[in-house]
């Protein structure tokens, strides 16, 4: 069955891909097939959420990871010949997609943030971010299937529809991958998930000492928000955990309010906040790039401005 294929490691990502899949399938009059790794019980759920066909990938041995599915997915794709193949842009999803594309000898649009058929309805035009966030690159794929990886939370999840029907088919078990998992360390979240926060206070290099982060926390508490940071804060200073690092190579957020404290506004970081409703910033350097992408900017030392802001917020509420 030619049509739209989707692959995601997790359900929430699959629902986002199904949303795009349904839209593209409606345009081209084709069907949506979802690859489902591991748990076959979710097949009905995927059908309710827009899959016309669910291809079950059998559970893997303990020392195997999802790249093991590569040969099975490639064989099935060669037979079914889908028009479009979308994968969630998680670390393993990105690697798997690039390797599938290599084996199918096709092109892949990595970290695609928008995709639409052109006027003729023939070519799928896909957009992605390039040059660290400075540019938007638009690409088309000249070979079949058209492949793209989609960053999680770029699109809304699809809603379930009652009475939908679909096929469920089991794919064969793959041979063991040469890459064996020796150990898994599940990350224990030290913090709450800031991708859902309405207000995010971002900590930048303007902070001099880790103790001073209390200023950011107080502001976050006053506004009912969470704190995040720029790459140097998590990766070089290790003042905050890596999962709070906002940017192209970290997390992308879309809060109502982003407030950067001592954030210079390097393009890689700004790319992670481009979908914020309002961007505000405090920086003592009047020429900091953050002011070029902020709605409201306070030019001043954060050590001076943040306590005043806190006071004003307490006064007004």
């Amino acid at each position, binding site marked *: 069955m030619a049509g739209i294929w989707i692959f995601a490691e997790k359900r929430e990502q699959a629902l986002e891909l199904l949303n795009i899949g349904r839209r593209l399938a409606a345009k081209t009059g084709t069907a949506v097939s979802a690859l489902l790794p591991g748990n076959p019980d979710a097949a009905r759920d995927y059908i309710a959420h827009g899959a016309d066909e669910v291809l079950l990938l059998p559970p893997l041995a303990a020392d195997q*990871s999802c790249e093991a599915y590569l040969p099975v997915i490639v064989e099935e794709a060669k037979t079914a010949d889908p028009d479009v193949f979308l994968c969630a842009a998680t*670390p*393993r999803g*990105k*690697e798997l997609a*690039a*390797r599938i*594309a*290599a*084996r199918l*000898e096709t*092109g892949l649009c*990595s970290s695609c943030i928008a995709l639409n058929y052109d006027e003729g309805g023939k070519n799928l*035009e896909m957009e992605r*971010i*390039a*040059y*660290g966030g*400075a*540019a*938007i*690159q*638009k*690409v*088309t*794929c000249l070979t079949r299937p058209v492949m793209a990886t989609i960053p999680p939370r770029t699109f809304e999840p699809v809603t379930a529809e009652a009475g939908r029907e679909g096929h469920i088919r089991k794919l064969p078990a793959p041979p063991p991958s*040469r*890459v064996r*998992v*020796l150990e*898994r*360390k*599940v*990350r224990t979240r030290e913090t709450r998930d800031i991708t859902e926060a*309405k*207000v995010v206070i971002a900590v930048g290099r303007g902070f001099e000492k880790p103790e001073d982060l209390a200023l950011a926390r107080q502001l976050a508490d006053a*506004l009912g928000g969470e704190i995040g940071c720029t790459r140097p804060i998590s990766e070089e200073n290790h003042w905050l955990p890596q999962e709070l690092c906002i940017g192209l*190579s970290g997390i992308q957020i879309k809060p109502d*309010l982003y407030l950067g404290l001592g954030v210079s506004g390097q393009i890689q970081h700004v*790319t992670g906040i*481009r979908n914020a*409703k*309002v*961007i*505000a910033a405090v920086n003592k350097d*009047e020429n900091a790039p953050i002011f*070029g*992408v*902020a*709605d*409201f*900017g*306070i030019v001043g030392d954060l050590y001076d*401005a943040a306590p*005043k*802001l806190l006071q*004003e*917020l307490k006064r*007004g*509420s």
Partner: protein
Amino acid sequence: MPTIIACFKWVIDEAYIRRGFSGDLDFSSVDYKISDYDRNAIEEAVRLKGSHGGSVIAMTVGTPEATKGVKDALSRGPDQACFIADADFNKLEPSQTAAILADVIRSRIVNYDLILCGEGSSDLYAQQVGARLAEHLEIPCISFVQKVDIDGGQVVAERRVEEGIEIVAAPLPALVTVLPEINVPRIPGVKDTLTASKKPVMTIRKGDLAPLGGARLQTVGMTAARMDRICEKFGTEAAEITRFVDALRKKAVIS
């Protein structure tokens, strides 16, 4: 003792790109650099050589101008470089770059043990060349790696995944793509630069390669990213702070 190949790309430093008046990209005053994460790949290759011996080959595909990048790479510790150059090589898409690298590695580097690549290039950040190269060479691929070592005939790596970290092993030869957390790349000194100019460079031209396949991905537009924001500035005096908070309240983003 292992032979390690570190792949790198000589790219436009994105910090110098300006937005043109009509929303186009102004490349008129750009400088070039070794792509950020590729510096980590080179550093890690040299570090592994330090503990296991062997040799490191720095390899790049690019335009003849990338010769500056080859010198830069060699000043970071590799023993030799392999420079695949052609004036047309500024428009390659990932599938083509991977095919060229695979062709050269297969035909000219007989016994290699490990290939290191950066997780993605600073210019296009497609994150495909490493994984595609591994497929062409039919060797195991481990991506998003923040720690790596060679242990006998296998590579052991810590890679980042959705849920946390996986420690994985694969038989050599293998390909690993690295994250910037893996090390801090050195800043080459004057002596390193002088030594670099004496190291051997194998230059390969387009004509020495198997015919290049067509692009599978076509760039149909490249425009400056738009961030249409109000860009209003405030001071730190009491009245200004009040005005700032009022502005946020008017936008209904705070209560």
